[in-house]
């Protein structure tokens, strides 16, 4: 039976890797009590809190954390008319935090995610594992049967070509969840009592050409390598769909990573997901997505980016164009989404004016 770690205060003092190069982005609408438990692991880092919902409400941040907080008024003030691309009343608003960050790496986590325990009972420093994942190469071109060959105690297996053993830079690290698994509403309704108690001690690179459902609950990425692709779409208030923000970002990110020769890892670290959202509410948010994803997945699986898309922004704009061409017929929502994708890139470039950084090589 999975339980969260409670004695994290007693956790050994951590060497805070990338202390000045990583921001933790947290979307919240309620409170940030969960940070108390993460304190030994998070306190050395800068937090970016994106407050969703009513901006007049005050969100109390626990003492001792270094943070900046943005509510809807701030978002509107900073982006002006471009604020239309940032969702309201949905955790998708977190991507505003990615945009305003000035750091190289981002770790994002939901406010109902706590510290998990590994099978030995030790508290898991999820951030530290994400950093390890991001700082070691990925291997998307050939599958290693012993999973991440760069982990201690593992290596490339017989038959793995030596020319592929250097790997490629890791753009994103996708963590998993013990306790409440990330199921969609229909699955939650059918299996309301199912809990994920299986600790799978593996990190692996998702092969090139393979898509996956990216969950935003426990995610880290290299903002310099892939940041502009992490747009979490138009969800929530006034939109016909919800709970597909991270999915959308994940599909765009994976297509672009595949094109630019970057890697995406999944597996460790685990966090302890404590809150099961209401499946009926979820069903109402998701149901259009459940139909639409049947069209969306083939679209992304077949998406080809031209060779001259050598930066993330160029790739993303091209994707937006293809979304407008090919998905608008599914629903006019995609027309709006495609426009919002372009607005996002414009806003990103405005707030991050160093210009497009060449990222990897075009496939």
């Amino acid at each position, binding site marked *: 039976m999975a339980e969260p770690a409670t004695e994290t205060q007693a956790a050994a003092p951590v060497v805070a890797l990338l202390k000045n190069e990583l921001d933790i982005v947290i979307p919240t609408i309620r409170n940030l009590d969960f940070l108390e438990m993460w304190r030994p692991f998070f306190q050395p880092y800068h937090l970016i809190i994106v407050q969703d919902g009513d901006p007049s409400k005050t969100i109390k941040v626990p003492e001792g954390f270094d943070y900046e907080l943005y509510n809807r008024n701030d978002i509107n003030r900073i982006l002006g008319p471009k604020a239309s691309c940032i969702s309201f009343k949905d955790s998708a608003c977190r991507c505003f935090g990615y945009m305003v960050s000035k750091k190289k790496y981002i770790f994002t986590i939901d406010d109902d995610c706590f510290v998990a325990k590994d099978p030995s009972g030790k508290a898991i420093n999820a951030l530290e594992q994400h950093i390890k994942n991001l700082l070691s190469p990925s291997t998307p071109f050939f*599958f290693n049967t012993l999973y991440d060959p760069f982990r201690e105690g593992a290596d490339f*297996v*017989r*038959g793995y*070509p030596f020319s592929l053993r250097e790997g490629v830079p890791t753009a994103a690290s996708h963590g*998993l969840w013990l306790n409440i698994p990330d199921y969609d509403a229909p699955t939650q309704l059918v299996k309301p009592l199912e809990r994920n108690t299986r*600790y799978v001690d593996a990190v692996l690179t998702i092969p090139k050409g*393979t898509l996956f459902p990216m969950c935003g609950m426990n995610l880290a990425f290299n903002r310099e390598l892939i940041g502009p692709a992490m747009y979490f779409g138009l969800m929530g208030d006034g939109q016909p769909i919800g709970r597909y923000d991270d*999915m959308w970002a994940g599909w765009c990110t994976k297509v672009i990573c595949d094109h630019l020769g970057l890697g995406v890892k999944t597996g460790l670290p685990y966090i302890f997901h404590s809150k099961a959202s209401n499946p009926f509410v979820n069903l109402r948010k998701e149901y259009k997505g459940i139909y639409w*994803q049947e069209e969306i997945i083939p679209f992304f699986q077949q998406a080809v980016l031209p060779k001259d898309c050598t930066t993330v922004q160029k790739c993303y704009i091209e994707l937006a164009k293809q979304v407008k061409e090919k998905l608008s017929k599914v629903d006019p929502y995609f027309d709006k989404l495609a426009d919002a994708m372009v607005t996002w890139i414009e806003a990103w470039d405005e707030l991050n004016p160093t210009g497009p950084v060449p990222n990897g090589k075009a496939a």
Partner: protein
Amino acid sequence: RTLRAGKLTERVLKLFIATGKDEVFSLIQALNIQVTVTPVLPTRALRPDLTSFMNEWRTIFSRFHLIIVKDPDLKEELKIPEGFNLDVYKKPDIDRVVGTSTSTIFSGYSCRYFGYLVSRKKYIISVDDDCYPAKDNKGILVDAVAQHITNLTTPATPFFFNTLYDPFTEGADFVRGYPFSLRSGVQCALSCGLWLNLADYDAPTQALKPEERNSRYVDAVLTVPARTLMPISGINIAFNREVIGPALLPSLRLGGEGKFRWETMEDIWSGMCVKVVCDHLGHGVKTGMPYVWRNDRGDAIASLRKEWEGVKLMEEVVPFFQSVRLSREAKTTEDCVAEVANVVKEQLGSKDPMFARAAKAMVDWVKLWKSVGSSTSSPGA
């Protein structure tokens, strides 16, 4: 009643058997109901004394029919303990079935393919004779056969990655964002297991890290995505012989092929073919559990003094297989293998005579499979 209703499936039969009731067993025997899914284990005999190997596996293997194939180059007599339901094939048997000129393809580790050829069962499980049952994280002995069968009899999901790994295992499911149309999955044709202790590393890696032992038990089975290739080790695998039997084949033989696993590439080559064929025909390949405990043997540094043939070879082999595209007309496994053989001959044959020989071996294998492998009567031991 179930029989009359025509509803006796394997699953239902298993439920009856699980009751442990004597009346059920005697009825099954009386009616001669055959469980068609009994796996066969062609354990290649590369060392003559199989006593400790078979005794370690006894509780797991004794329920099944075993095929033991003796490496035709092995001179000593085999020592096999009592109490197993098995057929043993040695050089004279191999010669009788395929002819003395052909039997050379079954030397060394490739002797296992003879077992695959003569088996008449639906599923095959194949384990090297230096592997023993492993223990999981709770200290419980892993029934590798049962896990392979579970892998082969539950669907695979090659078209979209499930982040919680095998969605059909207990306690797991498809995650949010997984398209519903892809949730029924496809048939799993191949199950690739892993190894604790001595992992399947090549000679350079083992020479570099002589003390490294794999102690990480990863509690997962996952489907290898379509169009993703991987090194498929022959040390601990299982497959659906009815579906892809002909695609596991002895064809690539290194010039300096030796008697240790890291001196061979035959399984890696065969595995590439199998994956390409599975991808084309829409079958799944799983990897992960079960683990076996692989024992130490051999001296990797001594092997390094031989040619690095196999290691160098992969630089060609991998890009080649990644580029192979089979035609729409290739609808059976045999057709697919024949097409791959053709492409091997055309694109790689001129680079190294070893590839030309491999291509020919593949063509010959398809013929051999058609004549020996798919006949309805067993060739007999």
